[in-house]
């Protein structure tokens, strides 16, 4: 009795908001998977807090996408009733949690980008996106600080924590390029002053990441081959499993509330 997926009219601005909303929802969901399972109570709370920050960002962005689209869709329908191929998030963010080091490396790679991105988006000519950016910037600044401190301690910690952090960097590095990728549909928004060109953030991102990784006595891979596809709905096998859990209730009992 699964309910069918919705149709979305992906104008450039709707698509733009959905891509950022999906980033926040998927990473937020990944962090929520740690709830009750983190290595220590203190980090259990920290990860859940950050997950809730991201869920809040996702809700605002989905609501804005729904308003811009002007159809029958809303934040819940975007989250619960789109199929895996309709999701637009970065591949990096759907990668499984793995161990604590892997979760922190993923968080660090993204937060170091999101911090710059939201700060730049505060200057957007789109008043709603600028307002969302102003709120999100403070959250991502803390996410960056939290994950940076852990990068340093895992990398410069024990032999085992170092090895796990380095393995996570090596595995996830190829997913970082997608954060700076721009397609034609975003180019128009960038030229219109609505969106930030992420390529302009790359030098500062690399500087921040390199400095922390060096302090952590870790190393960035030499390879510059980058994976992409998430922005246009071509995902890794992991996202389908994530969505089957995230959406199971609404797919089985459409419109259920409690």
């Amino acid at each position: 009795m699964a309910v069918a997926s919705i149709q979305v009219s992906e104008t450039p601005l709707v698509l733009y908001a959905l891509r950022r909303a999906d980033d926040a929802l998927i990473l937020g969901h990944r962090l929520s998977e740690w709830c009750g399972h983190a290595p220590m109570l203190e980090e259990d709370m920290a990860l859940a807090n950050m997950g809730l920050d991201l869920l809040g960002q996702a809700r605002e962005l989905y609501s804005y996408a729904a308003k811009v689209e002007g159809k029958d869709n809303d934040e819940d329908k975007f989250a619960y009733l789109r199929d895996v191929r309709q999701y637009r998030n970065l591949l990096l963010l759907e990668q499984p949690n793995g161990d604590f080091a892997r979760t922190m490396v993923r968080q660090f790679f993204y937060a170091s980008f999101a911090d710059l991105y939201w700060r730049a988006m505060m200057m957007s000519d789109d008043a709603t996106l600028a307002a969302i950016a102003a709120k999100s910037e403070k959250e991502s600044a803390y996410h960056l600080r939290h994950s940076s401190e852990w990068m340093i301690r895992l990398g410069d910690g024990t032999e085992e924590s170092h090895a796990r952090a380095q393995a996570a960097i090596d595995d996830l590095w190829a997913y970082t390029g997608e954060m700076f990728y721009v397609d034609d549909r975003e180019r128009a928004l960038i030229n219109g002053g609505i969106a930030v060109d992420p390529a302009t953030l790359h030098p500062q991102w690399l500087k921040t990441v390199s400095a922390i990784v060096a302090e952590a006595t870790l190393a960035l891979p030499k390879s510059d081959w980058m994976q992409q596809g998430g922005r246009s709905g071509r995902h890794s096998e992991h996202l389908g499993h994530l969505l089957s859990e995230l959406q199971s209730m609404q797919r089985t009992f459409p419109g259920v509330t409690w």
Partner: protein
Amino acid sequence: MATPNTPLWEVFIRSRNGLAHKHVGSLHASDATLALQAARDIYTRRGEGLSIWVVPSGTITASDPSEKGMMFEPAESKIYRHPTFYDVPEEVGHM
């Protein structure tokens, strides 16, 4: 998780300007920076704080419970130390 790598820290929160930092609880963390982060995540989630102190629990010198009699009982019989033996004139109003 009381391991040598994650010692105990006491957390103090100041909720408003002009108030003192109040003890709110404790947590485990490997060092002061992570203790401060954890305190933020655990004890200020509902907007409780403007400022946080974390103090290594081991640095606190506490009174000995077995000396309770000597330490505290002598004060119990001296009710005249409470400021309740003064007549407050009407004009002063609520103090």
